[in-house]
């Protein structure tokens, strides 16, 4: 069974129709921007080693924002017939006329071509950038997802398993009354699962632009190896520990840095730790937002944002120096700069944030890694150099205690081990930590970075991160999960 979702040009025509409707209803003076997204998502979820939820949906969402006589309003609809679109326009025009004046309207994006990228696979025919888009992922059917689940379950060798296999497809277009008109499409696949052995959980997680890159058997075997290695954990006293964070845990750091630190609105309102051109990180740290993909990787996102601004790579931190934060047009105007292409429907209130951050990996390891180890391959050389510390796989339920210092509390999950003299010597129970993330990556605190950045899906949204393993001098563990 294939899903009839592959379309090109339909969204751009829809966006142009809405811009024209705005002209008819509100006159030529209205500034209008229209984002049309057709999203199809399918997810096969398993627990207790069986598929228990298997879902799919597809919808087109039209979002209109307009500025009229100094007032701004936005509206959205999934009703895309003539009556639905006219209703959207009339409702939004009426809302704009009734709204209080908007003194901070940043204006529209002027006509600007999309940026080309060797990693981008998401644009439609008219952009000339339709290379690399994986039709097979966009067209994946439930049986293909179920097959990967079956492989994961079998590879776990009888351990209880749970997780999901997901494919998504988006085709989108943007048009505004200033003449900007762009379109693109993207597809993504992800698999995330755990295996459970006697109260110990092990995890394996991977994102890709190609479903074909996801091997359920490999992931299931990795999760099972971790779970088996997590049996009989001991409790350790709270304190500051040297740690190696595996890529899954590092992705949480990237997520919180993105949402709160490199958020342009938080920066403009002085709620972020970020100070441009300041040496805020260890010189080994480089962070780049890559919505158009990189190297041979498929692009994870669309080539433009919700204001029609073309996306491109954005260097957030280069060699330890903070270089940029993400902006939409509003936060950019407030900060006296230009948009970086990070507008979203919520960015004017929540703030724009980078959603495809890569932490640059270190040069390749010189020692061969053990592929059968429960430890992530790129983390093995880091562990070999640790005299006494903890190997942490995953972080969970992390929340900000103070946005300015980015002090965060949360717990470990899916595997913690004690490392002594370069060897894993035993499993450790989950612990709570309370730690300033910028402080953990400050100058002199980063003792090593893994040689490979792994693509990892975000737990909640469609964003993803590319994370290597990370060896840190200190991580503040404030208590055992058991009390």
């Amino acid at each position: 069974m294939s899903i009839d979702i592959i379309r090109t040009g339909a969204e751009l025509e829809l966006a142009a129709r809405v811009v024209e409707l705005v002209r008819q209803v509100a006159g030529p003076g209205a500034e209008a921007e229209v984002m049309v997204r057709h999203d199809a998502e399918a997810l096969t979820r398993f627990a207790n080693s069986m598929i228990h939820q298997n879902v799919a949906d597809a919808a087109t969402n039209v979002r209109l924002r307009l500025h009229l006589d100094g007032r701004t309003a936005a509206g959205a609809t999934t009703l895309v017939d003539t009556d639905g679109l006219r209703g959207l326009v009339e409702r939004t025009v009426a809302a704009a006329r009734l709204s209080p004046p908007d003194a901070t309207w940043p204006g529209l994006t002027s006509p600007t071509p999309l940026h080309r990228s060797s990693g981008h696979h998401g644009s439609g025919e008219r952009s000339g950038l339709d290379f690399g888009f994986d039709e097979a992922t966009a067209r994946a059917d439930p049986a293909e997802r179920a097959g990967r689940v079956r492989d994961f379950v079998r590879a776990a060798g009888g351990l209880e398993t749970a997780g999901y296999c997901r494919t998504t497809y988006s085709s989108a277009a943007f048009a505004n009354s200033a003449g900007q008109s762009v379109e693109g499409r993207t597809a993504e696949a992800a698999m995330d699962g755990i295996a459970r052995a006697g109260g110990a959980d092990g995890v394996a997680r991977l994102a890709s632009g190609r479903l074909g890159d996801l091997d359920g058997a490999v992931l299931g075997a990795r999760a099972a190896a971790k779970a088996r290695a997590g049996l009989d954990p001991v409790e350790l006293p709270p304190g500051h520990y040297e740690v190696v964070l595996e890529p899954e845990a590092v992705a949480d750091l990237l997520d919180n840095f993105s949402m709160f630190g490199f958020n342009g609105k938080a920066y403009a309102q002085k709620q972020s730790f970020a100070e441009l051109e300041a040496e805020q990180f260890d010189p080994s740290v480089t962070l780049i937002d890559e919505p158009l993909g990189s190297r041979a990787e498929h692009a994870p996102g669309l080539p433009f944002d919700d204001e029609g601004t073309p996306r491109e790579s954005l260097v957030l931190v280069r060699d330890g120096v903070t270089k940029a934060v993400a902006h939409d047009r509003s936060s950019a105007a407030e900060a006296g700069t230009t948009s970086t292409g990070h507008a979203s429907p919520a960015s004017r209130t929540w703030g724009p944030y980078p959603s495809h951050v890569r932490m640059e990996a270190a040069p390749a390891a010189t020692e061969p890694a053990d592929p059968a180890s429960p430890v992530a391959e790129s983390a093995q050389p880091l562990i070999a150099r640790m005299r006494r510390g903890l190997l942490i796989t995953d972080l969970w339920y992390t929340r900000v205690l103070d946005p300015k210092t980015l002090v965060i509390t949360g717990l470990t999950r899916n595997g913690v081990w004690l490392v002594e003299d370069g060897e894993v010597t035993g499993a450790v129970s989950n612990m709570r930590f309370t730690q300033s993330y910028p402080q953990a990556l400050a100058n002199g605190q980063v003792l090593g970075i893994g040689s490979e950045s792994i693509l990892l899906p975000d737990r909640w949204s469609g964003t993803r991160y590319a994370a290597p393993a990370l060896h840190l001098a200190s991580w503040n563990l404030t208590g055992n999960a058991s009390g």
Partner: protein
Amino acid sequence: MSHFDEASAAVQAALEAGARYADCRVMVRRGESMSARDGDIEDVGSGESAGLGVRALVGSSWGFYAVPDLSDGAARAAGRRAAQIAAASATVPGPPVDLVPAAAVEASWANACEIDPLEVSLSAKGDLLVGATTAAKQAGADLAEAAYQVWDTRKWFVSSEGHRIDQHTRECGAGVWASAFGDGEIQRRSWPSYGGQYGTSGWELVESLDLIGNAPRMAEEARALLSAPLCPSGETTLVLGGEQLALQIHESVGHAIELDRILGWEAAFAGTSWLDLSQLGSLRYGSELMNITIDPGRPGALGSFGFDDEGTPATKRDAVRDGIWVGVLAGRDSAAVAGLDYAGSVRSDGWARLPMVRMTNVGLEPGPHTLDEIIANTDDGVFMDVNRSWSIDDRRLNFQFGCEIGYEIKNGKLGRMLRNPTYTGIGPKFWQSMDMLSAETVAWGTPNCGKGQPGQVGHTGHPAAPARFTNVRVGVRG
């Protein structure tokens, strides 16, 4: 306008495609929101979404498919596709699926609503938010923010067992926030709660909050917090205000009693639960003052409905009685697996999402005291209120919460304001230490409960009153 015909067509098509059970929800939702910052409107938005979602059970496997098209043809195609997806699930099968019995219901339900939130003019709403942020700014806030949200949802539910239910739910809420920037830190005060107060109610709820009247005090307290002493570290007697206790209930009781978590269905994401079904009816969860109810029929609370998304009528039941764990939040299939005879707690956040076990109104029944009496009876301790941060482990045992504001309690009186108050503990140990409970209950609304994959945002209500806990670790620092 009714959409029973489209829902019926989808169910019929799923049955013809091999399903032994099917249901369909048609949902039409309108929403509206506005936010303001420092006396200016920041964002005004509205949305309309319509579609249908079909659930089909083929053999022992579920399938779900959703489309935004309400035509008869689209409904039938969606029904067939749901059945096909269910058939694919059978390649990794589980044990037989049963549903606890349910009588077919034909009914309509709508919540009480004095002032339709979508009929209040945008200019009046804007004036409210501009007024509140201006008042906070004038009182010393470095950053003043305010916002409201409105949801108007109509649903038509049909099942292959004969259900035909339509519901109209109107929800809204608002809040104002004042931040003060110090040297390397930020303090924030929120009125009336961390994210605002929300309910299944008309605009009268927002009017009752008096955002403009309370905004100056929020700004003054945020400024005062910058120079307040840090919350001391150590074990002490902790008095929690009702707003913070509502989140404590949500995180350490509400999620823990979700049957899908207990059964392991959320193990890879939301997590499991420390609760073991073999202990239902005998496990001591808290002190004898602890009486937690599941009450989706509570008027005005954010987790209210007439029927859940499986057609089960709203029914009040006990989750914890006199400190003993006695009930769970359940759906028809999870209840059958657990051998229970009730369901009624299944919802989804839209037509495109699979209904799953969600909290309704999970609340703590009131006690005999007042907050003043609790403080007067405390020689040495800390009072904390209004959530600032929340974190709990995947089994819902180890929690750490931060609050916006704290006060020391000395010799039965509130003393100095305390900065960055936090407390931590283990769920059952914490609840067993509750020794005084107030009668001053408010049903706090939580409109941002995340669960499920693909992610869903749930609306839940939590009646709660101030309470006292002994020997609690406070003042955890990074």
